[in-house]
């Protein structure tokens, strides 16, 4: 319940970034700059969900508790949803800023790789019937995938030249977040990321609890 209250308080602030009319718009981006309040949080949640899925996978392998597998799977589902959202919003933004929907920028490659990993995990999960076996195999695979992902999300976009802010040839390289933002914009940005994170955790809790109840019901009646 507390999550709901916090989320309810923070949403009205975040949903109207237009309420601040004092944005000095980023040169070359114009009004498009406001996409950042929705694009970056989705990308961040994609990585966060993947991290949480791996943490619960490790927990499952240690304790063999099927509830942990349900939590891991819910994080995967949410990660898949937000991964698609980040890819699509990024592609639309790229169309109007870089001129192409898809140009194999290192960051686009990395989000594509994440999408592939999520897809492979779902394929693996649907292929195995036995619950415990499915949980073990998907846990192992997601850990293996997690050790290769840093290559993509964190290292490769930084060392390779690209169009996305934060690339190696960007003049103000560094964290993507703090480029050319004034304090107003920064505040909205941080609030938006926090609100999306809360929204994610809320959805994740509802999703994992309902999934686990469903699994238990199915077990009882079988």
């Amino acid at each position: 319940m507390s999550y709901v209250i916090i989320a309810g308080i923070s949403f009205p602030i975040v949903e109207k970034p237009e309420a601040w009319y004092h944005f000095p718009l980023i040169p070359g981006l114009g009004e498009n700059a406001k996409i950042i309040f929705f694009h970056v949080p989705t990308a961040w949640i994609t990585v966060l969900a993947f991290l949480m899925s791996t943490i619960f996978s490790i927990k499952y392998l240690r304790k063999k508790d099927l509830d942990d597998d349900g939590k891991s799977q819910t994080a995967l589902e949410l990660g898949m949803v937000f991964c698609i959202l980040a890819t699509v919003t990024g592609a639309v933004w790229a169309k109007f800023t870089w001129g192409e929907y898809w140009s194999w920028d290192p960051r686009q490659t990395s989000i594509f790789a994440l999408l592939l990993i999520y897809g492979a995990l779902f394929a693996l999960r649907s292929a195995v019937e036995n619950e415990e076996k499915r949980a073990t195999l998907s846990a192992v695979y997601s850990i293996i995938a997690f050790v290769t992902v840093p290559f993509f999300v964190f290292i490769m976009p930084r060392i390779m030249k690209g169009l996305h802010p934060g690339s190696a040839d960007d003049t103000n390289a560094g964290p993507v977040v703090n480029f050319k933002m004034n304090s107003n914009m920064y505040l909205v940005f941080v609030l938006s990321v926090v609100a999306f994170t809360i929204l994610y955790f809320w959805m994740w809790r509802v999703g994992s609890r309902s999934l686990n109840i469903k699994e238990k019901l199915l077990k009882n009646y079988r």
Partner: protein
Amino acid sequence: MEGLYLFLEKNSIYIVMIIVLIVWAGVFLYNLKLDKRLKFIEKEMKEGKK
């Protein structure tokens, strides 16, 4: 299609709107899935009581 593209290029706040709608559509779809799952649970619970 061409006219739409030009319109969006000039009034880029609508692109922001499209992006926002896409994001909320994704969240909505996930909630729809949750709703389906809860319906299933409710049905099973009722059948279990009988």
